[in-house]
C-alpha cells in the first residue's frame, strides 16, 4: 500500500514536471517570460519532506532534479539533482516529525525556494556560466518566481498533504515495528 502511494506521488510529480516545461511557458505572459519560472516539482519535494519523510524527499529531489538536468542538459549536469536533494533532505531532517500547519508549510516552502534559487545561482557563478550580480538575479527572477511558487503551494496544499501523508504514515509504522 505504501508503495502504491509513493508511486502515485511520483506520477503526480512527473505530470508537474511536464506542465512546468510544456504548459507553463504558455500561461506566463510574454513580458514576464524568463522572470517568473515555475519550480512545481521542487515545491512537491518540500511537501514530501514535511509530510512524507526526509528519505522520500531526498530520493524525489535527486530523481526529478536529475530528470531536469538530463532533459534540458545545457552547461552542467547534476546541479538541480544536488540542490533539490540536499534541500529536501535537510528540510525533512528539521521538520518531518512536526505536524506543520499551512502557514509553516508555506513559509518553509518560500524559504526553500529562495535557498534553491540561490544555490543554483552560486553554482553557476562558481563555474562562470552566469556573470550577473546576485542582487540583480534576486530582483529579476528569484523573487518574482517565489510568488508563483507560493500561490501554487497554497492551491495544492490539501491534496499534496494527503498524498504525502498517505505514504508517510505507513512508512513510519513500519519503522516502529
Amino acid at each position: 500500500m505504501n508503495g502504491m502511494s509513493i508511486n502515485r506521488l511520483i506520477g503526480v510529480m512527473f505530470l508537474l514536471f511536464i506542465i512546468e516545461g510544456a504548459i507553463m511557458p504558455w500561461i506566463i505572459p510574454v513580458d514576464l517570460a524568463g522572470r517568473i519560472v515555475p519550480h512545481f516539482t521542487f515545491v512537491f519535494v518540500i511537501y514530501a519532506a514535511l509530510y512524507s519523510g526526509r528519505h522520500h524527499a531526498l530520493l524525489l529531489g535527486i530523481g526529478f532534479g536529475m530528470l531536469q538536468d538530463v532533459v534540458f542538459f545545457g552547461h552542467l549536469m547534476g546541479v538541480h539533482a544536488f540542490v533539490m536533494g540536499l534541500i529536501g533532505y535537510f528540510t525533512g531532517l528539521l521538520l518531518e516529525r512536526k505536524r506543520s500547519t499551512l502557514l509553516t508549510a508555506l513559509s518553509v516552502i518560500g524559504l526553500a525556494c529562495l535557498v534553491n534559487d540561490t544555490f543554483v545561482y552560486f553554482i553557476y557563478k562558481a563555474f562562470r556560466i552566469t556573470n550577473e550580480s546576485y542582487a540583480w538575479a534576486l530582483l529579476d527572477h528569484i523573487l518574482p518566481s517565489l510568488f508563483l511558487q507560493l500561490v501554487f503551494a497554497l492551491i495544492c496544499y490539501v491534496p499534496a498533504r494527503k498524498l504525502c501523508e498517505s505514504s508517510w504514515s505507513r512508512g513510519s509504522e513500519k519503522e516502529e515495528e
Partner: protein
Amino acid sequence: MFGFILFIAVIGFSLSDRKELTMPEKFLGDSVGFAQSLFYKPAGIIAGFFEDIRNLRTIHEENEQLKLLAAAYARDKINYNFIEQENKRFKEELDFTERQEQLYNYKYRIAQVVAVNNDTSNRTMVINLGSKNGIKKNMAVTTVDGLIGLVSEVRPFTSTVMPITELDEKSPNSNLIAATILGKLDSFGIISSYNQETDRLMMTKIDEKDKMIVDDVVITSGLGNVYPRGLVIGTVENKQVGDFGLTYTASVKLAAKFDHLTEVFVVEVQDIEDAAE
C-alpha cells in the same frame, strides 16, 4: 559528504568535451520529450486562440502591411531569379568545384519546440527532431525573425537547443558568432556575449574604420564554419569604443523573440555532412 563528491564528479564529467550523450541520457530525454510534446502543442493552440481574439482588431492593419510586403517580395523575387541565373552562369564559367557549389545550399528543416527549461541561467529548449531526422550537433536554429541558437545535444528523436542568449566569452563551451552587416559585407564583428541585464548581445572586435551605423541589420557572416551565413541576428543599437581603445563594440538588439516559440527551423548545411562522411 559522499553526495558532494558525487556531485562534483558528475559536474566534472558533464563539463568535459563530450561528443555524444550516453545511452541512458538519450533514452530518458527521448521518452520525456515524447510526453512533453503531447502537452506543449495543445497548450500552444489554446493560448494562441485567446491571443487571436485579443489581436482581432489589429489584424486588418496587419493584413494591409502584409499585402504591401507581398508585393515587394514578388518584385524582388523576379530580380532574384534573374540574379541567381546569372550567378549560376558565372560559377560555371569560373569552374567552381562541386564542394564550392554546394557550400551555401542550405536546407531548412521545420521542427516543433516541445518544452522550455525553467532554469533562468540555462534556457535550453527541446525540439522534436533528432539524429534519426538527420539533425547533427552544432546546426543553427532560426525562426522566421532570426537566429535562435545552436543544436547542443542530439538524441535519436529529440534534440536540445542552446539559445544565443547563453553566449558568453568566459564560458568554456560556447560558440562565438562571426557577424557582418546586411548590405555592407566588408563589416566584421564578433558576437561574443549576451547581457541578461540589458537584454542585448555584445558585438566586439569591430574595426575602427568600419562603416556600420545604428539600426543596421546584423547577420551571420559564415566565417568560422559553425553558423551558416546570412541568418539575421538583430539590429545595431549603439556603437562605442571598446576596452582598449583599438576596436569598437556595439550592442545588438535581438531580432527573434524567445518566448512562445512553436515552429523553428534547423538549418542543415551541406558542408557539415560532407566533412562528417
